[in-house]
């Protein structure tokens, strides 16, 4: 498995969920203490589901790809689903040989999403 899988390269070059949500219902931002990278996630909710979500920020390709597949996984899903997601579910989607030193890059968007949705942050 490559360090930068096709999924990561593709999402880095052509993110599908990068941007902002007009009049968001929820929003959160956090920083990766390792590198100072910043990820912000905004979302619009409807009927207990994530109707629309977008991410923005200054971050590496791994965080960017992680944020992008995360929001794809969450779109249309019940808000409660966010609490069930783990970095393992993201790693599966990213299909990449992520080193321990970069695991925080994968985890950051999930932490931000869970904070945005006010759900419990799981380890």
């Amino acid at each position, binding site marked *: 498995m490559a360090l*930068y899988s096709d999924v990561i390269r593709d999402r880095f070059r052509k993110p599908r969920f990068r941007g902002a949500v007009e009049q968001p219902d929820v929003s959160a931002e956090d920083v990766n203490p390792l590198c100072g990278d910043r990820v912000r996630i905004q979302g619009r909710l409807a009927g207990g589901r994530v109707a629309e979500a977008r991410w923005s920020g200054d*971050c590496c*390709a791994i965080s960017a790809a992680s944020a992008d597949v995360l929001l794809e996984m969450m779109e249309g899903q019940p808000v409660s689903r966010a609490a069930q997601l783990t970095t393992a579910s993201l790693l599966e989607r990213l299909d990449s040989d992520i080193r321990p030193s970069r695991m925080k890059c994968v985890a950051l968007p999930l932490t931000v999403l869970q904070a945005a949705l006010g759900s419990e942050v799981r380890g």
Partner: protein
Amino acid sequence: MSLGEKTRRDFPILSRTVNGHPLVFLDSAASSQKPIQVIEAVEHYYRTSHANVHRALHTLGEEATERYEAARDAVRAFIGAASREEVIFTRGTTEGINLVAQAIGRTLRPGDEIVVTEMEHHSNLIPWQMACRDRGAVIRAIPVVGEGYLDLDGYARLLSPRTRVVAVAHVSNVLGTINPVARIAEEAHRAGAVVLVDGAQAVPHLPVEVAALGADFYTFSGHKMLGPTGIGVLYGRREIIERLEPAWGGGEMIKEVWIDRAQWNDLPWRFEPGTPPIAGAVGLHAAVDYLGKLGMGQVMAHEQALTAAALEALAPIPGVTLYGPRNPEMKGAVVAFNVDGLHPHDGAALLDQRGIAVRAGHHCAQPLMKRLGIVGTLRASFSVYNTAEDVARLAEAVAALRGDL
């Protein structure tokens, strides 16, 4: 044969491969590799002479003490200190700065000022923040201007009778700028302040004569200058450290002890509580001998040529931004750069895939990153064992970076 080609065979690690490529090690500013002479000196010490130093009445203890104190003499000569009493062994640069910041910190009064620079490594900033916080003192910073030089007019305006300490890097670990330490010290002394110089990025790369620089304290690490980890040096000018209370207590730093008080030991042991890094000192001795044999003037010329070649090779690559002075004679063996659209951590990971080790991130200099308006940089740094071929492989890989992702 260049100095790099001649010396690299002394460094066993350089013959290994990384991710299927011959290793190109360009992260010596973080920690240098070790020549066989240093590795064998440490091994020989452990095999033949190890025991605790000082107060030992047996042969091994005497041998260990001899080696430990011989290392002090070698370091004294290497950095041009006036006497061995001025050479204090520490665990590294960070400990040296903390020692001074805590010892002087206890004498700070509310409103006293510590002058640092915007280009300091966190290790020459946080200890001062802690000292100031505890005593109601204030930190001021000399601005960084232009290509990465200190604003010396701004510095002059910062100095006042309230200035107690001026703490400055000799060479920036990001920009590579060689700061005019002698002039900075002279002006600080005129204002009645003491001067601490963080020499971590200078001693491994250029001739340093601490007495001539006028520094009151000068501190550096063994592991960045071909020596082992866990050993460092704090030079302290005798008139200053004679009057300085020790920062930390313990065995070894005392002459006589009662239950409620103690009499301090002589210099330099007064500042070396506990069992010191003996093997580290032995290894540092070997490193100092190694560098001394090469000649620090030769080392500097060799690394400046590599820095010049790297600046020249990287500058024309599309999307590359260089940080720090463009004149290689004004800088140490460090080249910081970014590639447009590429996070430095991704850049470093991709270079590692090609066997090239560089540093990426904020380099423990977040205030400087904020000043430059960036999250971080890539950083290639050189040592005695690097060659023109290393620079060529770096430039080739950097040119390919954007296609790699």
